[in-house]
């Protein structure tokens, strides 16, 4: 049997490594691009190229850049999300341990859902009325199932012409 503190030690070493590699990649792979608004910066990572290309073809390339949809529209949230995504994506990129094809995670989809509502509050006022939390449904069943009237359920191609 391994003494428990060894496991803890191992964890710390791994964490250190993780942070180290993450930070290295963050720098080398122009991870700072997460901090700018230039969409081309996201495409610095070739795994983002297809998403960039499909954004260019989408109706929104003229009106919204990546960060408009993929980061929250309040300052603190914005930089927190950027930091968290920037770090984890850099880490994933380095280890190669990420799904193929890349799939948006629930919390990041919630961010995009909010982004739609932020820009389109006027036009959607009638259909989102009654939802206290933006993007959240009214009943407890809604909470479990996801979002009521999720914009991207219908507008599948606004951000990216194909998935």
């Amino acid at each position, binding site marked *: 049997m391994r003494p428990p503190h060894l496991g803890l030690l191992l964890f710390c070493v791994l964490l250190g490594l993780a942070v180290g590699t993450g930070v290295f990649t963050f720098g080398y792979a122009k991870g700072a691009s997460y901090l700018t608004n230039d969409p081309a910066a996201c495409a610095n990572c070739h795994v983002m190229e297809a998403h960039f290309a499909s954004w260019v073809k989408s109706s929104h390339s003229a009106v919204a850049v990546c960060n408009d949809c993929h980061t929250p529209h309040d300052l603190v949230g914005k930089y927190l999300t950027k930091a968290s995504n920037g770090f984890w994506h850099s880490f994933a990129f380095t280890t190669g341990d990420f799904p193929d094809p890349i799939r948006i995670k629930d919390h990041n989809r919630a961010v995009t859902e909010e982004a739609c*509502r*932020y820009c389109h*509050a*006027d*036009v*959607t*006022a*009638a*259909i*989102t*009325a*009654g*939802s*206290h939390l*933006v993007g959240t*449904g*009214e*009943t407890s*069943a*809604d909470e479990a*199932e*996801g*979002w*009521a*009237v*999720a914009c*991207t*359920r*219908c*507008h*599948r*191609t606004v951000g990216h*012409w194909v998935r």
Partner: protein
Amino acid sequence: NIMERQREGLDPFYRVVALTDTTVDPAVWGQNFPLQYDLYRRTVDMTRTRYGGSEALPRRPTGEDPRDTVSVSRLDEDPRLREFWAGYAFVEDFREERGHAYMLSDQVFTRRQVVAQQPGTCLNCHASTYVAYLRAGNGDLMEGFARVNQMPYQEAVRLVDHPVACIDCHDPETMRLRVTRPAFMEGIRALKAGQGVEDYDVNRDATRQEMRTYVCGQCHVEYYFAGTEKRLTYPWDRGLTADSILAYYEANGHNDWTHQVSGGGVLKAQHPEFEMFNQGIHARSGVACADCHMPYIRQGAMKVSDHWVRSPLLNVSNACQTCHPWDEAELTARVHTIQDRTYQLRNLAIDASLALARAINAAAQADAGNPRLEAARRHHRRAQFLADFVEAENSMGFHADQEAARVLGLSLNEARLGHLALFGDLVQATASALPAPPQAVTPPPRNGTR
């Protein structure tokens, strides 16, 4: 500021009048929600599509039937249907359905009312009955429902004034969707129980997205009148597929009428849109009736739900194109491809059912004691119901394309077995069992609302 209003949970409509749980008249609701009301009133418009929509045939109003337009007679369009339903009121009058605005008058004045005495139950789906039920039950909806069911139609119809109205789908205070029809509450509860979900209360447990389908499922469903109380019942205990519903009727022995040609007890299927839709890929993907039949439409600065409920083929761009980036002609062609295939099999299945009925008729004429008749009639009853299920479903297969073809395949197979039961020395004269349905109702996936 509009963002603020939204965050506070307010909606952008100005309340001009107060709406209560007894405000039936949609014109009153329309003062608060003029956009929806104006669209709602457009359901009087009639336009034909290849298999749906409707066409206005002018007619001369008479004393007993004051309507100045009707839609086309499906019996004249396909005269085989007279033999298909021989012996039932449907051979008197059966028309292409049209917009919600007509539902009450079309029911009052169909000749099916003349040839048969109908119960108050009929009203459930042809009028704004919510307040009528409440009143008849002295505030108790279920009680009122039970009472109205048992009235003669002519008495019950005096309790209502409008076709389906705002109050039948909306809570007057919050405007949230709600189910107001007891038969649906009971039907969905039985269905969920069969799937292992106990004590399902639709108005408590359904998601908003599900409600966008359930409000329609109150009426666009297969039904029968149970017992002498004529209680409106949706036969969903075993599931929603055509064969599950047939198995339900085989178990309880219900007959709608005796077929004049085959001489056996048979069933009439009626508008199982909700049931069939649930077997399709759209239901499985979390798409709702309202997504296609009441798509959002921009009115001034706002998007509202298009309360002009109609064929999506009259409105492909709003109904389909947000989800499918193909042009209108292409989307229409896809629907037609599905419908044409379904129509081909539907025609073969009706022919097959008729051929069997005639063969049974001849055999019975030759020898009424022929022991093979019973099995042959059993197969005929199945073939008839399964073919009728797709015939009665109003999307001509679109709502669940493979499933519609499967059901017609089953029908053709039952017609074949009926002949085997009747003729030939080689085959056994007893009805073989109904094949087990390949799977239960398709529940939308967890992440279904995307």
